[in-house]
């Protein structure tokens, strides 16, 4: 547990697997850059792995001033203890004021372990981060420039803002896809700092024997337009109409969990709390009620069109365009309207 260090950097944990950086780490670089500018400090990225130094230039292009590389064969595959050791050692050495991690399965495995070892705070799965002066309601003390860690809680029914007054670093995991990926600037310069951290044999308590990666056939996050079908579509065959609309719009197909669970479409298409979080330019929700767990994954979309037979469906409350009607009737009309305009 460390005292507040207001000169400390803002850090991002860079997640990589087999030398491939995770998108969320670059999304976080963009936000960390803004936070660092606001605080008037530099921005650092910690990059543990094996033969990963070549990734540093990408991180610098996305906003890092300093990239701390911990390169070690024992970090070739992610297991918690060696990675936690690497991160804790660097926090102990540099005392950053903020450390953020992607709220990926890996980030949410690692980050709480680090927080426990540091005896500092950790907020899970944030959807926003801000800097603000905060008055502790209990002691009336003013704390300058704290990190507001904003997250949905209680099944998404409330939004909680969490702060950490004095047991720094201030740490959080941040949900994928909620921070915009800012364009890279190849002209930015930064330093690459090699760090030696001892990873003892005792930390190798867990070994990966076999690893199976499922190919994602659909790239939901990279798509500007998503047409998603839900339980209301009724069958795998009927989903053809969803594919057709997506096709004429140049988009990809998403789905609610009800559609996935009913076998209309594969799990890799699922959007929501337990699927992918997306923020496309246009989201068309067809036969989707708009349960809170689904909205959690799509409500940041720039424009939302909802098609539903039930005028009371919650999806309408976040939609920009609401069409009350049967999709079997509405979708062909949409397809025709777009075709005649030849987008």
């Amino acid at each position: 547990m460390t005292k507040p260090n207001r000169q400390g950097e803002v850090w991002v944990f860079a997640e990589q697997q087999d030398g491939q950086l995770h998108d969320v780490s670059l999304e976080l670089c963009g936000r960390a850059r803004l936070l660092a500018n606001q605080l008037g400090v530099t921005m650092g990225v910690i990059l543990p792995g094996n033969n990963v130094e070549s990734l540093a230039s990408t991180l610098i292009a996305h906003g890092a001033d300093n990239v701390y590389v911990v390169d070690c064969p024992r970090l070739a595959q992610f297991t918690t203890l060696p990675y936690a050791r690497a991160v804790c050692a660097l926090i102990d050495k540099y005392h950053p004021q903020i450390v953020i991690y992607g709220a990926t399965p890996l980030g949410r495995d690692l980050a709480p372990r680090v927080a426990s070892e540091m005896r500092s705070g950790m907020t899970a799965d944030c959807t926003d981060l801000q800097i603000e002066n905060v008055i502790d309601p209990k002691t009336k003390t003013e704390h300058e420039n704290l990190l507001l860690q904003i997250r949905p809680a209680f099944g998404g029914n409330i939004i909680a803002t969490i702060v950490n007054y004095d047991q720094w670093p201030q740490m959080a995991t941040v949900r994928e896809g909620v921070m915009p990926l800012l364009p890279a600037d190849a002209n930015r310069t930064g330093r690459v700092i090699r760090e030696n951290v001892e990873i003892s044999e005792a930390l190798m308590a867990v070994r990966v024997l076999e690893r199976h990666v499922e190919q994602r056939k659909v790239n939901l996050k990279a798509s500007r337009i998503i047409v998603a079908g839900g339980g209301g579509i009724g069958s795998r065959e009927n989903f053809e109409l969803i594919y057709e609309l997506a096709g004429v719009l140049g988009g990809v197909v998403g789905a609610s969990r009800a559609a996935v669970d009913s076998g209309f479409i594969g799990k890799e298409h699922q959007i929501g709390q337990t699927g992918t979080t997306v923020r496309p330019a246009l989201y068309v929700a067809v036969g989707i009620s708009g349960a809170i767990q689904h909205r959690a994954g799509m409500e940041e979309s720039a424009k939302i069109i909802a098609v539903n037979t039930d005028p009371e469906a919650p999806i309408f409350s976040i939609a920009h365009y609401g069409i009350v009607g049967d999709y079997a009737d509405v979708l062909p009309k949409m397809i025709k309207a777009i075709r005649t305009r030849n987008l």
Partner: protein
Amino acid sequence: MAYNSIVCIKQVPDTAKITADAMTAEGTVNRAALPAIFNPEDLYALEAALGVKERFGGTVTVLSMGPPKAASILRDSLYRGADRAILITDRRAAGSDTLATGYILAKAIETIGSYDMIFCGRQAIDGDTAQVGPQCAEKLGIPQVTYLEEFLNGEADRVRLRRNHGNGWEVVESTLPVLITVVSTPDAVRPWAARRVMKYKKARIPAEVISPEELESLKAKGLLLEQWTMEDIHADFDRCGLAGSPTKVYRIQSVVLTKEGFSKVEPTEDGINGMIHELITDRTLG
């Protein structure tokens, strides 16, 4: 070889049943207005532990922290096959964040003493943090394996597990003891066993007992469940409850669904053409 397992379980408000009635004027949730249930993923953790006991022998102890009414999930666990059930209930634990909760559970686990595996659900539906398991493992100084889908095999000093890493799965081997968080089990969670319900439905923690006579009689029948305080687990008060929690809730807002900029579109060709036209004009399309 037999394994001794401890399963950490939590009673949670059923957040799926939330309505406006369950929200207070300040935007906080009135937990009392919601049904209290066994956290769904903790049931998977219990099932995984009971499966291990069935295959290899050993014991299953369930451990929970919460108010006295959480004793109902202890009984539920006994109905499904747990051997021993303990509730940590103490006002000084109230307001604990994940760090403090991990600490308290670890102190209780150390008090239980010998164990090979700790099972936890991945996360609880009221907080969705998934942090308590890893933090408890760190406090105990033991390795962790998150997102278990299947317990594959066990030897005297190690276990083989299949976990979901988000983009697929991996098989890992861990030394013992280890803390495991569970996302699913190959078999459905076993139901209550009628025979065990008959046996344990009268089981109580001391806080649920009214008279000293009843207490004595329960004890004699082996139906008095364990209820522990901070003293029983030798916890350092500074590390529990609000005092031991670095994260503070600064603000709570209930989610108000935004209606701004909503247009109702008639399901007619004209209506739909108009919408498409607008989307082209504002450059969403085209």
